[in-house]
């Protein structure tokens, strides 16, 4: 609202207490800031094992092949000119074949792919997941996404959106973090838009002008006059709510996010029934048809809906950090029995190899499509950069899986293991690179020199070191962090 508009309202309403509850903006002005880099965290919920995706061991390479998590030599796939390898094994979970294609993914994205190794500090799901997001507290307890939102998110309507679950959904622990950088949790991406406007999409709602007047009365006269407010005015909760209601919400409404982020379409009523958005004065996102083509199951598969929303959030410059991923829940499929197995990667307790194959295929399929969308969206007309040129996708996971198996068992149960590694993709990370490696005879990963990237067989990487490397690649300042810079992880 302009100053003159507010003055006019104050005069019109005769409000001696005009603007009594107005707040200074809750976020700093964004002026002269460097162009944003974006972070999409895809969560490998339940234990995404790096030796079952892009660091597999061929049986002939190991002295203990029969009792370790190794793959048939014939299943190992390499790409000329790349140190990254994968496998062609495709498992079946609950009668549903694994989606995706790891060899094809490697061939398509190897130049932007970086494999790092790590040994984390917990095998408890929630704890390990949280530490995968905050590097074990490496940066004042802030999460990766909070760091990115703090650096680039001022001025964005929803800088930090989190669609994850359990530990991936937990906020960081830095009380000094500005509120704008804190995460906005989203559980139902198809319907997020309905929470981003306080009035549109409601039949018979008063006119915008009337509601503007009403909100001014609420803000400037009713709330300040109430005994409730006067008594509890020191409440941080009230202060926070007022800032969100009177400052942030109007900003979000002006950005028309109720349209830009609306993933609902004409067939998205309950159980696939028709939904007449126009009758409520709404429309689908302008990108709705495109996203329906890329993510055809987004009405029934939450992960596809999350990916579609992630694209809209980044492309429409609503967010700089987005977290998405599966959770413990089963998702039924449209063309197969399931789209997501119960427990996600943690179903490896029942069938390790099939589950890892299924879930890695599922995540890489989603990532592949997201990258495709971002490559075709222009970030800067002057430089010709696409959004992908300024985006990192990091597959975070709580922990790895145990390395052993019953002798020559084709499939088996695995447990949680601290030792693992990560997949990260971005045009600005050290692509087409494996940092560290895997001991073929123990299946444990080893580390690397943080400055040169040279493998160090006697070292295992800490989660805080990987955290710092990611921040460095994202050009987020790391002064004051618990670990030094890791230049080996960026170009």
């Amino acid at each position, binding site marked *: 609202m302009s100053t003159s508009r507010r003055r006019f309202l104050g005069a019109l309403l005769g409000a001696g207490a005009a603007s009594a509850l107005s707040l200074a903006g809750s976020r700093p002005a964004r002026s002269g800031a460097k162009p944003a880099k974006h972070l999409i965290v895809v969560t490998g919920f339940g234990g995404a094992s790096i030796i079952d995706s892009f660091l597999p061991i061929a049986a002939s390479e190991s002295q203990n092949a029969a009792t370790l998590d190794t793959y048939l030599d014939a299943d190992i796939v390499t790409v000329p000119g790349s140190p990254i390898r994968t496998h062609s094994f495709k498992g079946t979970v609950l009668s549903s074949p694994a989606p995706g294609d790891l060899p094809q993914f490697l061939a398509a994205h190897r130049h932007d792919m970086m494999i790092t190794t790590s040994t984390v500090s917990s095998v408890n799901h929630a704890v390990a997941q949280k530490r995968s997001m905050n590097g074990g507290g490496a940066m004042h307890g802030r999460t990766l996404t909070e760091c990115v939102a703090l650096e680039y998110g001022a001025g964005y309507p929803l800088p930090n959106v989190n669609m994850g679950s359990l530990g991936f959904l937990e906020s960081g622990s830095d009380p000094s973090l500005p509120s704008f950088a804190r995460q906005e949790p989203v559980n139902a991406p198809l319907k997020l838009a309905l929470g981003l406007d306080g009035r549109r999409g409601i039949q018979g709602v*008063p006119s915008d002008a009337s509601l503007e007047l009403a909100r001014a009365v609420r803000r400037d006269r009713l709330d300040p006059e109430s005994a409730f407010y006067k008594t509890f005015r020191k409440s941080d909760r009230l202060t926070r709510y007022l800032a969100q*209601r009177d400052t942030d919400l109007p900003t979000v409404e002006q950005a028309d996010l109720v349209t830009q982020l609306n993933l609902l379409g004409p067939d998205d009523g309950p159980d696939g029934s028709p939904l007449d958005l126009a009758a409520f004065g709404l429309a689908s996102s302008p990108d709705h048809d495109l996203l329906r083509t890329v993510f055809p199951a987004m009405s029934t598969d939450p992960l596809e809906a999350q990916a579609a929303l992630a694209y809209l959030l980044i492309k429409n410059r609503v967010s700089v950090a987005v977290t998405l991923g599966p959770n413990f829940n089963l998702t039924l499929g449209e063309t197969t029995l399931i789209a997501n197995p119960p427990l996600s990667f943690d179903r490896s307790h029942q069938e390790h190899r099939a589950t890892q194959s299924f879930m890695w295929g599922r995540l890489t399929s989603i990532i592949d499509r997201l990258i495709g969308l971002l490559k075709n969206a222009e970030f800067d007309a002057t430089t010709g950069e696409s959004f992908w040129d300024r985006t990192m996708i990091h597959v975070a996971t709580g922990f790895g899986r145990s390395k052993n198996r019953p002798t020559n068992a084709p499939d088996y149960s695995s447990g949680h293991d601290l030792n693992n590694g990560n997949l990260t993709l971005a045009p600005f990370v050290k692509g087409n690179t494996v940092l560290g490696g895997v001991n073929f005879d123990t299946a444990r990963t080893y580390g690397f020199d943080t400055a040169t990237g040279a493998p160090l067989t006697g070292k295992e990487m800490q989660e805080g070191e990987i955290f710092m490397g990611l921040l460095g690649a994202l050009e987020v300042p790391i002064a004051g962090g618990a670990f030094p810079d890791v230049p080996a992880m960026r170009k």
Partner: protein
Amino acid sequence: MDLDSIARRPAVWLGVLSLSLAAVACEDDDARAPTSGSTGSGSAGSGVGGVDPGDPFPVSAKASVRMKTATQLERDLAAVLSLDPDTFCMELGAFSCADVHGIRLSETDAYEGGFYEPLTETIISSPAAVDRMVLIGCGARAEQDLASPGSATIFNDLPIAGGALTDPAAPAVDAAVSTLYRRGLLRDPTAGELQAHRDLYTAIAASGTPEPALEWAKSSCFVTLSTLEFVFY
């Protein structure tokens, strides 16, 4: 529970009376109310025991307030507005408000969203969720009331001609606002609050809307039931 019967109880009226007296006494203290940019920075604690002796509203040192959950808000709105709690609040006529806005208002979504613990703080979309739920309920109440003058729940016998109030200061207008406060906030409105609602009508009518009375009824209800006092406890 019948809110009218609650409002008739002597104990409730004693409470209302004490609040009203306190509110009247507070009229001169508005100058000490927070001013722009200083919300939450009141001078509490300067007096004995954390109470400013000049302030009739001792400021709570702990200020421990909670926001209503989506279900609590939905049920409270249904009770205040005499609407069916199971059906009145639907987004796009298809989705339950409590489902759509649940996690924004301190609820969980374990089975579909993998959202196991309620948020302890509001998020940017929380106030939008509140405004939408209140607008949906108030819209239904106002339309029903103005369509059945004489037997309305809140906006009863408003002096309306040609879609406008013939007398914004009429007793029926103040009575409607008072009913709204009694049902929603379990107290009478202060003189200042009554005046604010009258001024709201004047402003809406001046904006040129074709049905200012209905717009005001919806808006008046909305601003009352979306105040901090109704949304938090």
